[in-house]
């Protein structure tokens, strides 16, 4: 209960600031409109309401975005090309597939790196270099390139998600798999345990907290990867396409609605990973 109040206060402050900013940012265009209609001396309250109900505002008011989200999800057939739920599902499926690929690739690379000094030296620089390339430049090449050889739809987008999400998993898991203390490793040696047993009974469980921390970052950037990949293929659909068409047509409300759906999706996904983490932690005897 004592957490509700601060959260609510911040939320109200943000919404209030947003409405105020909407007045300020939409005012020039509203003035132009009013001048054209020969409306003068509009009272402030009325003027504010005008700025909050424009068709294509510079900054849509919160209630405009909310009603757009409502109309484009609950209030629309799921199969409609204008349904945000439909586009959200397209993005979500690419995100999840890419996240699964990325996590698997990240774990495999980390395992190779900790067990083999040569792969540590040869792989790590490339892994780091891969993340310095702007994804906005790579995504179209991958999507268009794969499209040219007949691979379209989900997989090219998932590959971009994977490209982004494997990185935190590699870095986290290398650290995690190396986290057991010397004394715990010595113990395994006194039992003459084989490397397989050392991995499954010591390194893997010790790496769990690192895996989940990495996956939380990974799933959020997976979504970004999917959205960026969608920008390169307007016919494929997805939240990225809604952002793109919205900006072509000046449909700011549509852009903001798509943005909020994407942000909400990311928050839900991170929360799901978080609850999986709590479940695993409780199975592994963590302090309640």
């Amino acid at each position, binding site marked *: 209960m004592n957490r509700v109040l601060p959260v609510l206060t911040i939320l109200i402050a943000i919404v209030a600031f947003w409405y105020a900013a909407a007045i300020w940012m939409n005012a020039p265009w509203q003035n132009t409109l009013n001048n054209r209609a020969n409306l003068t001396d509009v009272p402030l309250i009325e003027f504010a309401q005008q700025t909050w109900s424009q068709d294509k505002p510079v900054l849509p008011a919160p209630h405009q975005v909310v009603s757009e989200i409502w109309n484009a999800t609950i209030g629309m057939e799921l199969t409609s090309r204008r349904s945000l739920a439909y586009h959200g599902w397209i993005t979500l499926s690419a995100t999840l597939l890419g996240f699964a690929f990325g996590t698997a690739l990240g774990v495999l690379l980390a395992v190779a790196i900790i067990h083999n000094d040569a792969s540590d030296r040869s792989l790590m620089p490339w892994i780091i270099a891969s993340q310095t390339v702007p994804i906005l430049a790579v995504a179209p090449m991958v999507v268009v390139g794969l499209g040219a050889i007949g691979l379209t739809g989900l997989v090219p987008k998932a590959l971009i998600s994977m490209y982004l999400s494997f990185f935190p998993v590699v870095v986290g898991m290398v650290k995690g798999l190396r986290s057991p203390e010397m004394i*715990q490793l*010595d*113990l*395994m*040696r006194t*039992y003459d345990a084989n490397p397989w047993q050392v991995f499954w*009974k010591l390194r893997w469980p010790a790496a769990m907290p690192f895996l989940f921390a990495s996956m939380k970052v990974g799933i959020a950037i997976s979504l970004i990867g999917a959205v960026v990949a969608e920008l390169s293929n307007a016919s494929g659909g997805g939240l990225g396409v809604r952002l793109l068409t919205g900006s072509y047509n000046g449909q700011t409300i549509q852009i903001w609605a798509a943005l909020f759906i994407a942000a909400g999706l990311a928050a839900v996904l991170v929360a799901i990973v978080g609850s999986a983490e709590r479940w695993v932690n409780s199975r592994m*005897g963590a302090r309640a």
Partner: protein
Amino acid sequence: MKQELRVRHLSEKTQNNAGGTAPDAAAVIRAEHLGLTFPAGDGDIVALNDVNLTIEKGEFVSFIGPSGCGKTTFLRAIADLERPTSGTLTINGMSPEAARKSRAYGYVFQASALYPWRTIEKNVALPLEIMGHSAADQAERVKRTLELVNLSGFEKKYPWQLSGGMQQRASIARALSFDADLLLMDEPFGALDEIVRDHLNSELLKLWARTEKTICFVTHSIPEAVYLSTKIVVMSPRPGRVTDVIVSTLPKERPLDIRETPEFLEIAARVRDGLRAGHSYDEEHV
């Protein structure tokens, strides 16, 4: 047929002899001119220098000395966690590596090294899982060893739910669970307060009497060494070496108040003298 067996037995014995050690059925650990040097940038560190020691079956041997005297290094060499650089070291007539691979010893570290994601019973079962014991055998051994260290009833607890002394008892149970005849203990009670330590010491003696294991025990406490041991190895640093080996005259049955008897104090005084003699050596380095 019988003759053939005897011949084979004899030839095995002579083979053991070829290793350079005298055939001694009772010797569990035999070190001869053992040296161990750690390479370091500014001159090598001599952790062990010309250590000669024989430990027989059923003995309780304490290693005592100031830090840097090589007592832990010697224990780790027995466990094949460090490689000696000179001399010979055999465990049950085998090389340390062969002994480790035959799971000849249980090792108790300074910290309990319990895996925090395993319950106490799962921690104790860890070596059994690795060594491939059946589930039924695991359960039976876990039950028996937890009884041995008085931890029955704590099977399902996680390590953080236990006190430090109980955690260390659990780690002793883990070292006992696969029934190795040799128990190597590296300052197992060093981090515990004196009351808990006294209690665990007397429990350890009872456990030793019941299981008849050979125990090597590293400590830096004189009363602990004298109270527990049948043989006390006094060591001194720079280079790490054995300066005195004291055979205890105390009876096997030792109540805690034996520590007030003149006999006990006499042995303790001899240990202290040995330590002091070793210490004056390195004062010139300070």
